[in-house]
């Protein structure tokens, strides 16, 4: 158990998503001899170097062969191992998509597919390495639980919850080093349960992954202009916490989803699918990455370019609310 305090949250933030994922795995391994961690030759890039050294028998580099990695993970899971299979988001969610479908979806093997560096955190490595569409693909597969934790503390909580969770899961890690902290003290985390972070009656911001922090910054900016925003961390994209969403929608005139994923098929779509049939459905603005392979640069530059920073989100929310009034 890794204790969450303002100090550890800052330390973890510097380590970033991958580093803290490796630490979280290391931390749970002690109590889980049935744990196996697989990598398609990206162990060190996935923060797993210390795990490899400490638990060499519970680590397997399957070679640069993600499709086989998912099948091997399923075979191990079938015989009672709890398996974490790791790679970069597109290499799992798309390169090995059908292996995920057959083994994790169809056969419900107890494999946690972990997508390192999803969203646009890979920056200058380019679109080949981005997780732009991974949620859309993974969310469409039956039986798969899809989780996208907000910060390093939430990654720890997710890993702890995933080890205890008997079933297939896609864990999407967004953010890089210096991942801003959202949680600085212990908090209740349950797969499938959204976490309300701020309460305000003028607009509801629903976010996942790195965009939870951005939504909080946007809420700050909106507050300065007298707009009170609710913010919820919808870390589980599937199954979506419909009850939390309904409760939020009942309190606000408009919802805004914010995600580091294309606006097609991700959190915005999941929310829209949930609310579409409701007779008094709330207005909804879906913010995310454009449906494009954009020119790349450093991560922070790209977030600015895509308008996925607090002030830009706040501005778009204000514009959306103004439209509503006229």
């Amino acid at each position: 158990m890794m204790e969450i305090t303002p100090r550890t949250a800052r330390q973890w933030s510097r380590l970033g998503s991958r580093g803290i994922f490796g630490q979280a795995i290391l931390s749970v391994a002690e109590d889980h001899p049935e744990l196996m961690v697989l990598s398609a030759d990206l162990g060190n890039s996935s923060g797993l170097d210390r795990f490899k050294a400490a638990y060499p028998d519970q680590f397997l580099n399957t070679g640069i062969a993600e499709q086989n990695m998912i099948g091997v993970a399923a075979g191990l899971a079938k015989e009672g191992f709890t398996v974490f299979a790791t790679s970069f988001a597109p290499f799992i969610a798309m390169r090995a998509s059908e292996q995920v479908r057959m083994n994790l979806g169809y056969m419900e093997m107890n494999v946690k597919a972990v997508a390192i560096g999803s969203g646009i955190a890979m920056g200058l490595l380019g679109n080949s390495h981005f997780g732009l569409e991974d949620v859309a693909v993974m969310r469409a597969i039956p039986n798969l639980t899809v989780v996208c934790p907000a910060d390093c503390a939430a990654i720890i909580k997710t890993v702890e919850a995933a080890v205890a969770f008997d079933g297939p899961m896609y864990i999407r890690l967004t953010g890089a080093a210096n991942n801003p902290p959202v949680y600085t003290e212990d908090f209740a985390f349950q797969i499938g349960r959204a976490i309300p972070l701020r309460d305000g009656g003028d607009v509801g911001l629903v976010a996942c992954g790195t965009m939870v922090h951005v939504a909080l910054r946007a809420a700050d900016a909106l507050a300065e202009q007298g707009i009170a925003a609710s913010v919820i961390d919808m870390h589980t994209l599937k199954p979506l916490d419909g009850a939390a969403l309904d409760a939020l929608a009942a309190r606000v005139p408009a919802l805004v989803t914010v995600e580091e994923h294309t606006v097609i098929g991700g959190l915005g779509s999941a929310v829209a699918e949930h609310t579409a049939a409701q007779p008094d459905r709330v207005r909804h603005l879906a913010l995310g990455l454009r449906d494009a392979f954009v020119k790349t640069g450093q991560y922070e530059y790209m977030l600015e370019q895509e308008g996925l920073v607090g002030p830009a989100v706040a501005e778009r929310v204000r514009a959306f609310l103004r439209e509503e009034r006229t």
Partner: protein
Amino acid sequence: MAAFMRRKILDVSYTCGLTAHLGGGLSMVDVMAVLYGHVLRLDPKTPRWPDRDRFILSKGHGVLGFYPALLAAGLISEEVFATFQANGSALIAHPVMNLDLGIESSNGSLGHGLSMGVGIALAARKKRAGFKTVVLLGDGECNEGAVWEAVMLAAQLGLDSLTAVVDHNKLQSDGESRDIMQVGNMAERFAAFGWHALEVDGHDIDALVTAFDAPAPAGRPRVIVAHTIKGKGVPFMENDNTWHHKRLTKADHEAALAALTARGGGEAAATEDAP
């Protein structure tokens, strides 16, 4: 057992009234008879017995060679067998994982089974369990690149409790394999990847038994390349790829049974000991 299985294949294909993968089902019958009659350690009374040998039908369309073996081995009943391809049945045109019926995995999409077999064999080693893992592949299926990813890892890990069997009937959905994707010598290809490779006439029961029983070198996975004939046992289906996936009419059914009987295999009982 092989003769019993062939008869069952023809009967159930006819009674279900639908198209079925006859050619590839018939080509693997003798291999399956040897596996389920001789090689695999299974307990039909305890289908989930932890130490049972694991069999994965990677060429998932080969169910017509699989379900009759499960029937002959006592893992499924005649009643269940008779539901083949009925609406909502547990026995459809590709295997659906069902441990109580002896079906270890869901397949249908090609090139998945060997990866799972590698994971199972690795798990057996880690748990110090004594069971074997056998994966049946089609030769057409070996067009899939993921097969070779698994082949490489199995050799890298030295998984000697893993056996792959290739049903090498030289035909695939659209025609002759050599015209579609050149394979060269299948056994040599596996050997080049570090596997212990054997070649055998896939319709010679004694030769198959000898191959499966032969001592294999430690530290290497093993492949048995079974040279087979698609549609084997029914003369008008043999090497005729129109029977890859086709419906059996009443006349076809009668003619096929007559051909089986003429070859002396049509009346064999399920209870015979030898495969």
